[in-house]
């Protein structure tokens, strides 16, 4: 009902190009590359999305990310001239500026890059898996699970260390998403995108209700929860960030490994099966990748999953629906939005800071709505 395959209907030339490619692979008469990745993208000059065009996009995104990283290190209550950022980074750590940079700004920037990439990639994978343009990485109940676990840790077990929160939130995120995945596959007909979405929403509502109920009774829980829930890149140590890094890397590797299959799934379950894809396994790997990426990112940075819904849509408008370009580009551009939001949040309300999730919403939502209005959308 809601799985509109917008990607497959929109942007005629690209869709046609992709369909042609898949069709060529599917027909036994065409003796072409049998390997699953398929041939390279046809660099048709008429399409305007040639390999060169996309490489330029990729290079541009990388440049933008590097620039924003530098800005993120430079901007703050104590400004560092942009030209000196490199010098400070390579210079001694024990000066005053060196400490600010290495203890505050670098972890913050690192977290922005990692969390942004993770959420963006998870969103792209989620949308491809469910063929639902409304799927965000929190759809599996990840944020609600993390919040619930946080509530348990603070309210029930009386935990106070920041280090402990992260692991609790991560465990909660994983547990909730496993529950959603299993419940979404119960019943006749097995797993369908709509069932998965409804199960995710139901579990999210249930956990949120409990979290809110407890936080109403216990002000201490509320206090911790409300700061976490607005999403922030600040206040984490590099050590904590590095500890969740293996999970992020694992999730990213899984995401990359199923990318060619996601291209086939975009054409429909039956076509993907006809092209030799094992849907169950790919769905499982995709879901696992989303769980790892989103769980780790949300545990450290808070529930800023909307980034994962919006950025893949924006990137799709730039690069076309080919997942092999979409995922790397999203991985570069999602942290750009997050870092930009973080920098703006530091600057606009000095000396206070506005949390990154809030700025990202005010930055991203108008863009998202403009995008919706610009494109001709498929009807439901």
């Amino acid at each position, binding site marked *: 009902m809601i799985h509109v395959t917008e990607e497959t209907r929109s942007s005629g030339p690209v869709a046609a190009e992709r369909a042609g490619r898949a069709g060529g692979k599917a027909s036994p008469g065409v003796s072409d590359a049998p390997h699953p990745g398929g041939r390279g993208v046809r660099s048709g000059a008429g399409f305007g999305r040639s390999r060169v065009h996309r490489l330029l996009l990729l290079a541009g995104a990388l440049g933008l990310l590097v620039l924003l990283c530098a800005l993120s290190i430079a901007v703050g209550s104590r400004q560092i001239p942009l030209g000196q950022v490199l010098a400070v980074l390579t210079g001694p750590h024990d000066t005053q500026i060196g400490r600010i940079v290495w203890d505050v700004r670098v972890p913050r920037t690192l977290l922005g890059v990692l969390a942004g990439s993770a959420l963006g990639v998870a969103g792209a994978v989620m949308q491809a898996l469910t063929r639902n343009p409304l799927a965000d990485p929190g759809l599996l109940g990840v944020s609600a699970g993390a919040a619930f676990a946080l509530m348990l840790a603070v309210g029930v077990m009386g935990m106070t260390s920041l280090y402990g929160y992260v692991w609790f939130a991560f465990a909660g995120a994983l547990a909730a998403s496993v529950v959603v995945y299993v419940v979404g596959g119960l019943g006749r007909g097995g797993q369908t995108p709509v069932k998965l979405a409804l*199960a995710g929403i139901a579990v999210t509502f249930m956990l949120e209700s409990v979290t809110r109920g407890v936080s109403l009774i216990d002000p201490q829980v509320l206090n911790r929860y409300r700061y976490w829930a607005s999403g922030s890149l600040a206040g984490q140590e590099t050590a904590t960030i590095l500890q969740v890094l293996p999970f992020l890397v694992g999730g990213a590797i899984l995401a990359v490994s199923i990318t060619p299959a996601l291209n086939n799934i975009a054409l429909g379950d039956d076509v993907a099966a006809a092209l030799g894809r094992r849907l169950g396994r790919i769905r499982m790997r995709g879901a696992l990748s989303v769980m790892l990426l989103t769980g780790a990112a949300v545990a450290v940075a808070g529930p800023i999953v909307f980034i994962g819904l919006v950025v893949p849509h924006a990137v799709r408008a730039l690069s076309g629906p080919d997942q092999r370009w979409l995922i790397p580009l999203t991985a570069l551009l999602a942290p750009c939005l997050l870092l930009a939001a973080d920098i703006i949040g530091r600057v606009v309300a000095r000396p206070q800071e506005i949390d990154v999730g809030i700025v990202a919403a005010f930055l991203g939502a108008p863009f998202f709505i403009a995008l919706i209005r610009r494109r001709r959308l498929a009807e439901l």
Partner: protein
Amino acid sequence: MSAARERPRPAHHGRPHHDQPHHDQYKHRPGRGSTSVIEVSRVGGRTAVRLARPPVSGVVRPRLLVTCAALACATFAVLCVSLTTGEFPLPVTEAVPALWGGGDPGARLIVQEFRLPRALAGMLAGAAFGVSGAIFQTLTRNPLASPDMLGITQGAGVAVVGGIVLGLGAGLGTQTLGLTGALLTAVLIYVLAWKRGTTGFRIVLVGIGVNWVCVSATQYLIVRAKVYQAQEAVGWLVGNLNGRGWESARPLILALAVLVPLVLVLSPWLRALHLGDQVAGGLGVPVQRARLALLCAAVGLVAFATAAAGPVAFVALAAPQIALRLAGTARPPLTASAVTGALVVLGCDLLGQRLFPDLELPVGVITGVLGAPFLLWLLARANRIGSGG
């Protein structure tokens, strides 16, 4: 006309030819329906009932009727329990007369001033959430599209939390603020989704974007707030009927008295729009106007309900889906959704009051905790393959 017409084509062999002039076909056959006062007939599993005079007719769906009746009975039973139990238990023989001003003054005070308005506010808010969710889900043909997913209740949340934290228009009270916030957000979503007309799909997407902004704005206000303010804000955001009196129930009664008949009058349009814009247009529905009218009614319902009870989690989304599965219909049935919503909110509020002796839980906590597993259970045993929606 080509010569082919004179030759009998194979498909027409053995069939009687009808040579009567075609306008006979359009004439109402006399004799049917006019001989008896009431007529009952069955076509394709549907039972139709017709009165000869006045010319009233309709289709009867037994399962839907039974579902509605059973839900109504259950709601009435819960209402009786909520009127009779509590700190001062009253027997039914005292509580019911007290409704009409009978019985002793003490019972009258408890029933009329404390229990009845709260129960009414809960029931009516639940019914409003149910109907509004049913309209949204039918218009968009999307089971996830409910006013709390599209940012309308979150708009109310921004206004109310803004009132609590910043003191903006705090004199108006949460009720007026919530109402204004919800209505303004709805207008904003509609305007942003308008581009030579709207589509259900575009409204959903724009609603999600607006929802994101509203949630973030609320979050920002809560973070900025002092702890007691934050607690008050979260207390409202979760959906709460504690201490609701006639001042909450009365506007809701008025709103429902106007909007529910309006929705019933518009329901033929809703039924046609469920088939999609193209088909509905072909059936003579003014698509844009019909959608706008239905959205206005649905937004009005949810705005008044939110103003009275706060954004009670999950009811607008789950009540229509539960009613649909209980009644076995293709789209969320309006009446059954209303009764389901009323039962859910009333029952959950009662549970929240009575579950712990020294602690009153807000109704929104209970609806999420109980409603979600029920919906999951319905999902898991859905027998329509590949649907679940």
